[in-house]
């Protein structure tokens, strides 16, 4: 089992020059695992994802993605950022948006080629947005846009998908649809998803990675009432602090 590890992190520390954001991180993610990543805001989730994608370099420790340093494997990772890193009135169609995912895989000069268009078509088909391909992104509903962003992450035909709160802006029904879709994709792709709604996704995921500077992993089988209570306990504690801050 340990021979097919896709992401292996050992003894990792990271800081932006000041206090440690991440400390002593160890995780070994196996092929076709479905990992849920939880933690309060500012706990280092996004930082850890950026290290895995080679955008940030750790102070200490080793990171291997598909057996290589992250910068060499980033083309094998499909990434779906948190909503709103672009303007929704940008004149761009669904198809063109999805094609953006081919960057880094396609030739570096000229226009997108036939292979890119085929990959985009397949990705749009997988997430059921093919009929929207000519629509401009500003005309999509929240749920449709999230699917388009998943398609964009899929067009590079990744071995790993990383999704940063894919359901932060959609209702429960759409959230369930999206996680059903991810579960299907999980048959061929290793998935890491950042979320706040651990209670809901526990039926989909294999393990939960709880991050708050350090990382503790729980298999979902261990996710009994007590562990959930503990996790939520920590969570509610943080919320409590926020409220206090606001009052002061």
């Amino acid at each position, binding site marked *: 089992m340990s021979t097919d590890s896709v992401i292996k992190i050992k003894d990792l520390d990271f800081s932006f020059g000041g206090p440690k954001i991440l400390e002593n991180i160890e995780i070994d993610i196996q092929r076709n695992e479905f990992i849920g990543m939880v933690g309060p805001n500012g706990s280092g989730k996004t930082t850890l994802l950026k290290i895995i994608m080679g955008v940030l370099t750790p102070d200490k420790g080793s990171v291997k993605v598909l057996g290589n340093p992250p910068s060499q494997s980033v083309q094998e990772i499909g990434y779906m950022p948190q909503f709103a890193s672009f303007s929704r009135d940008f*004149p*761009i*169609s669904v198809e063109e948006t999805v094609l*953006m995912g081919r*960057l*880094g895989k396609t030739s570096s000069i000229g*226009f997108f080629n036939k292979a890119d268009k085929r990959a985009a078509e397949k990705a749009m088909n997988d997430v059921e947005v093919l009929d929207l391909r000519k629509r401009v992104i500003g005309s999509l509903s929240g749920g449709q846009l999230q699917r388009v962003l998943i398609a964009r992450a899929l067009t590079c035909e990744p071995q790993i998908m990383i999704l940063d709160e894919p359901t932060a802006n959609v209702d429960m029904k759409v959230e369930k649809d999206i996680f059903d879709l991810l579960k299907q994709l999980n048959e061929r792709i290793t998935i890491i998803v950042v979320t706040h709604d651990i209670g809901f996704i526990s039926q989909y995921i294999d393990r939960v990675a709880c991050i708050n500077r350090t990382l503790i992993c729980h298999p979902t089988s261990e996710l009994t009432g007590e562990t959930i209570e503990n996790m939520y306990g920590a969570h509610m504690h943080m919320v409590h602090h926020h409220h206090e801050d606001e009052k002061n």
Partner: protein
Amino acid sequence: MNSFIDAVSTQAFMQNAIIGGILASVACGVVGSYVVVKRIGYLAGGIAHSVLGGMGIAYYLGRPPIEGALVSALVFAVILGWVSLKMQQQEDTVIGALWAGGMAVGILFISQTPGYSVDLMSFLFGNILMISSDDLLWIAGLDVLILLIVFLFYKQFLALSFDEEFARLRGIPVERFYLLFLSLVALTVVILIQIVGLILVIALLTLPAAVSGQYVRSLNVMMLLATVLGVIFTTGGLALSYQPDLPPGPTIILVAGAFYLVSLVITRFWKKA
């Protein structure tokens, strides 16, 4: 109007002016669309105005002002690009300082140039009626260069203007392409200075693309429509200014501005209906 058509069919300077307007519209349609969707009109304005520094120095040294404009536009594009990447907090202040500083340098050099005083107004407000065949060659050459770069790096520029963060994660060297893009803005500014002068450049750079952006669903079509609108604005401005003998540069800008306002009202009204 008839006398304008007569002038176009008989006078070489009028033909040059029309051709100059068309060639300039290509650059401002393509590059202006990026400027509008990326919302860097202020940065582009900074490049346009600081170019007076280079033109003044070139004039002082007895070189053609367009050479000074070309060099200083590229230098300022890189400096301003670096500032906007590295000093995001003070970006607008630094752009403002370079904008005004560049102009001040230009005016000082022009004032110290011996001989009869240069027509400062033609630097500032351009004179499309004075465009020579040599100028047209320059403009055409810069057009070709701009289009070549945009075709080669179409994907990167689209990614950069649409979603910079995602582009970076896909391994695009975002900073390098941003500076390359600002260099295209610089080249476009140099072209447009010939047409409307550096004060009015920013209007011709952004207004055709802004009007176009109200109607289109893709960046390519936005560029195409903006180019067509640029031709309409420059030719229309020339025609309107000819009979009453008005300066063409400001007339062109007012035509573009009026078009933009009317279009803004129409699209607002239309979307509500």
